[in-house]
């Protein structure tokens, strides 16, 4: 091989090596780009699932709160009825007691 041919072969090898590196850089760039969109996609999915779970929690809480409030009101209504009945049974005696207070000579 002549000197010129040798130089040519070396230059060609240098070109090939540079191309390999260029290609690798292009692929690396593509890999980085892919991960960005992959992360965005994962974020959308995970947040969407979280929001769905949050909506379920809110709906359940609303329902549970409503039921608890209804139960509380039901029990209170019963207690109030009992209170009114007890008061009614003591009404006449109370009236007499208060009338006596008004008519009392002090």
């Amino acid at each position, binding site marked *: 091989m002549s000197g010129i041919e040798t130089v040519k072969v070396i230059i060609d090898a240098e070109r090939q090596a540079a191309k390999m590196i260029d290609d690798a850089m292009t692929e690396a760039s593509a890999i980085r780009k892919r991960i960005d969109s992959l992360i965005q996609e994962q974020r959308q999915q995970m947040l969407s699932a979280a929001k769905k779970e949050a909506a379920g929690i809110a709906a359940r809480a*609303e329902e549970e709160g409503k039921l608890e409030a209804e139960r509380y009101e039901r029990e209170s209504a019963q207690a109030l009825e009992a209170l009114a009945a007890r008061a009614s049974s003591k009404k006449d005696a109370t009236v007499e007691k208060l009338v006596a207070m008004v008519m009392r000579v002090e």
Partner: protein
Amino acid sequence: MSEASKFTEDILKSGREKAQSIIREAEADTQRASDEAKSAISREADDVVRGARADADAVKRRQVSEARHRTKLREQQEKDKIMQAILDQVKKRTSELVTDESKYIPLLIHLIESGIRELGGNSAMVHLNKVDLQRKASSLEQRVNKSVGTVKVEWSKDPIEAAGGAIISTLDGKIRIVNTLDQKFDALTPRLLIEARASLFGETSQ
């Protein structure tokens, strides 16, 4: 292998290695970025769920609290209604008892006497309602005069509008002591309410 071939091979090997290193670095970077992103997204998602749980607790507490408030209000309204009915009945019974002279006359005399004492001075004018004015003719005047001693008592002929009791005034009418049953009832109302609450609902204080 010639020197040139070996040199060429070294150049290509170095290029390959550099290219592989670039790819590995990119893959490592993306793996790290992916892990960090997953962790951050997971925290973000947890925050969303945690926030929803906190909101849910608040919603439940608010609903129960509103129910408590509503029932407390209803209970108070019911109690107020019962108390008002009791007071109305007491007032009615009191005005009916005016016809029972054995109970009413001692009270009337007491109201007149205490009014005269409160007024002070040597003379007093007693004002009664129409029914009591008719009673005056009997023993009322005599019993009052006897109990107030030296105070000169005059009896107004003009009836007052009252269920019972009396208004005691100076002769010129400038000072008046209102000792009517209505006034007594009004003055006693706070005590009557306390007594009624204790008696009906077992409430010892407001």
